């Protein structure tokens, strides 16, 4: 048995790997939501004077990275590896941001679970002694996601009650082998779970089984229960997916109490007309790198389990009548300092 492993799917980090700095920038709609005060910057519009929304999303990711580096008093040269991903085909936001930053780059994709995948892999690089400082980023943009996955943004389409609204925003985390901050103690790598859901505007239902599978595996591997954590945050099952997750866990004998929440529910207010809630890589990324990080530094949250969930469909698979596979990765953050 590998010495840094617990159970079947969980990585155990024995070194002190800290989230030494985090930053997030979000769009105007997110800035009108309940978590506005926690984001580092709220944008006035989502085009930012660029020629396309794709370029605007790259701008957002790069600016968030520079913001995080500035807060940490670091430059691009101080970062050894850059791990990033986004929702767009060929993860162009991440790749084109890497082009500008000139940091050795590893592109990753886990749909909305990308930031968690990045943090897990980044921590692994540090644990194994390959690096001292790794930067992880993930972003999404409402308009780039709409025009790629669903419909032209000006087409009059009625949303169903299960539909989610892609968040415009980015989250960046800088991991270090030194310094202070919340430490990544465990990472549970998820399996792809597909229960035959075919509707792309019902992603919560498609992803909930993966979240349940990873959560159960995490508790089994670490011998922990939900009560161990001050907050268990999924991202992004939204209202419907999280209701289903509660039921799936309950059926399996585990009750998720008031310490369970979902970033898709938290990011928007119900009055903002977003049906089931928020979605997109930027959802859990921006909330982890603002709300969760700040609450942990303030001592209000000491032990957090972040579970990123991703819907691994493409426009092609949907049109070929394939179902939507889901995946979920979990990382445990603990701040004892």
């Amino acid at each position: 048995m590998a010495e840094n492993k617990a159970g079947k799917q969980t990585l155990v980090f024995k070194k002190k790997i800290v989230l030494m700095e985090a930053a997030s920038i979000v769009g105007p709609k997110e800035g009108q939501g309940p978590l506005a005060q926690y984001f580092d910057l709220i944008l006035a519009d989502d085009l930012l004077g660029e020629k396309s929304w794709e370029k605007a999303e790259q701008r957002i990711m790069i600016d968030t990275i520079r913001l995080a580096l500035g807060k940490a008093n670091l430059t691009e040269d101080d970062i050894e590896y850059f791990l990033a991903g986004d929702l767009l085909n060929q993860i162009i936001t991440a790749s084109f941001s890497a082009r500008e930053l000139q940091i050795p780059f590893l592109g990753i994709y886990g749909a909305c679970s990308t930031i968690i995948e990045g943090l897990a892999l980044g921590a692994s690089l540090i644990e194994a002694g390959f690096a001292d400082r790794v930067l992880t980023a993930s972003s999404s943009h409402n308009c780039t996601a709409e025009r790629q996955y669903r419909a032209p943004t000006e087409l009059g389409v009625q949303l169903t009650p299960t539909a989610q609204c892609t968040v415009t925003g980015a989250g960046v985390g800088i991991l270090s082998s030194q310094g202070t901050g919340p430490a990544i103690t465990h990472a549970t790598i998820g399996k792809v779970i597909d229960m035959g859901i075919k509707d792309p505007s019902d992603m919560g239902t498609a992803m909930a089984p993966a979240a349940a599978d990873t959560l159960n595996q995490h508790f089994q591997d670490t011998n922990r229960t939900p009560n161990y954590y001050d907050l268990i945050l999924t991202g992004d099952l939204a209202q419907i997916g999280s209701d289903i997750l509660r039921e799936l866990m309950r059926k399996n004998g585990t009750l998720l109490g008031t310490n369970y929440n979902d970033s898709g529910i938290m990011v928007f207010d119900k009055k903002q007309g977003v049906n089931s809630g928020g979605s997109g890589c930027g959802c859990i990324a921006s909330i982890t790198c603002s709300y969760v990080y700040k609450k942990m530094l303030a001592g209000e949250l000491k032990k957090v389990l972040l579970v990123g969930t991703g819907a691994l469909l493409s426009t092609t698979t949907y049109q070929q009548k394939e179902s939507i596979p889901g995946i979920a990765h979990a990382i445990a953050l603990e701040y004892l300092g």
Partner: protein
Amino acid sequence: MVTSLLMAFLVGGFICAVAQLVMDLTCLPPAHIMVLTVVAGAVLSGLGFYEPLIKFGGAGATVPLTSFGNALTKGALVEAQRIGFLGAFTGVLKEVSLGISLAIFIAWFTALIFNPKG
């Protein structure tokens, strides 16, 4: 005058409402519903029901997409009856040529001068 407005409201509203019902019961995307609507108009036209509906409902029958199906079928039927097999093909786009040309030109012009707002 007022009767024509009321009839247009009722007939047009009804056609749209039925399309909405089909959309909600079948969970088909809007593009599929639009195709179904046009084909429904074509079938109603073939059965001879659409022209009376236009007399009855005015714009309530000519504004919805079903009217497009009716125009396609009318054109194809008239030419087919007149010259036979090939007429189905020469006639189908005759009645709708104004609508399609207008749509292409106006769509192009509008897309040129505006930008998407998201």
